């Protein structure tokens, strides 16, 4: 298997995530926290994020389905989602979360719904791209395999 090629693909995918604004510098922070003691830290955090964000988004869906809209509750859920987005550097999602919260403040339900659809799309795209990225990394293996230092 061409590990160099896989690694290059992973690097290109990663660069694209930053260039296209899906991720911001907070993602670098997660990468800095990854070490020998936690070799899969970034993937673990991202996995947790997608699990947790799916739960929050299901709560928001339910709240939006109700006849009587509770904008305070919607705002609380969205604040939690935005917080998680911030923690992993999910920049586009974070921007849409902010827009949603502004609609909550204005009690603009149509705005909330439009914004939420955008959040769902961004969530789906980001998940797809990051899953591909981590899959490539797994296939490429650890860097030490390819560059054994001379002793």
């Amino acid at each position, binding site marked *: 298997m061409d590990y160099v090629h896989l690694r290059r693909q992973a690097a290109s995918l990663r660069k694209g995530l930053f260039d296209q604004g899906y991720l911001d510098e907070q993602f670098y922070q997660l990468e*800095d*926290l990854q070490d020998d*003691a936690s070799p899969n830290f970034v993937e673990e*955090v991202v996995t947790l994020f997608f699990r*947790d964000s799916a739960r929050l988004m299901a709560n928001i869906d339910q709240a939006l389905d109700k006849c009587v809209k509770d904008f305070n509750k919607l705002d609380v859920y969205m604040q939690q989602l935005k917080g998680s987005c911030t923690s992993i550097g999910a920049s586009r999602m974070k921007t849409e979360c902010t827009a949603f919260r502004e609609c909550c403040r204005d009690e603009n339900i149509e705005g909330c719904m439009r914004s939420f659809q955008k959040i769902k799309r961004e969530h789906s795209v980001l998940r797809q791209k990051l899953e591909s990225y981590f899959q490539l990394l797994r296939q490429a293996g650890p860097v030490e395999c390819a560059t054994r230092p001379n002793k």
Partner: protein
Amino acid sequence: MASYTGSKSTGREGSSQELHVLAVDDSLVDRKVITSLLRKSKYRVTAVDSGKRALELLDTEPNVNMIITDYSMPEMTGYELLKKVKESSELCQIPVVIMSSENVPTRINRCLEEGAEDFLLKPVQLSDVSRLCNRVLR
């Protein structure tokens, strides 16, 4: 919700004593990140998901050197946890640091006036933790 516990101390080595930080955050993602930040700074970490669990742990675990808590949590906010800690004769000496994703000056002032050592804006950086722990846990 189950607690997420970071690395535990394997025991005291030589003359250095591993300091124990209690991290409180209802967000699973943030608990993992703050735990890693603190472990990277060589602290023993216990992470819990609520103020209630934090108080339960403080009841049974005497050796907590610092509490770092999120502000916005359901049922008991970080501010309410701070107040309870500062009102307790057993716990009031433990430094408490508040984290929040929102930069609200009145919130920050209220926490500092109540005795918080510091107020960190999320996302918390490694440099924030290093600076904070050097100052608070010196």
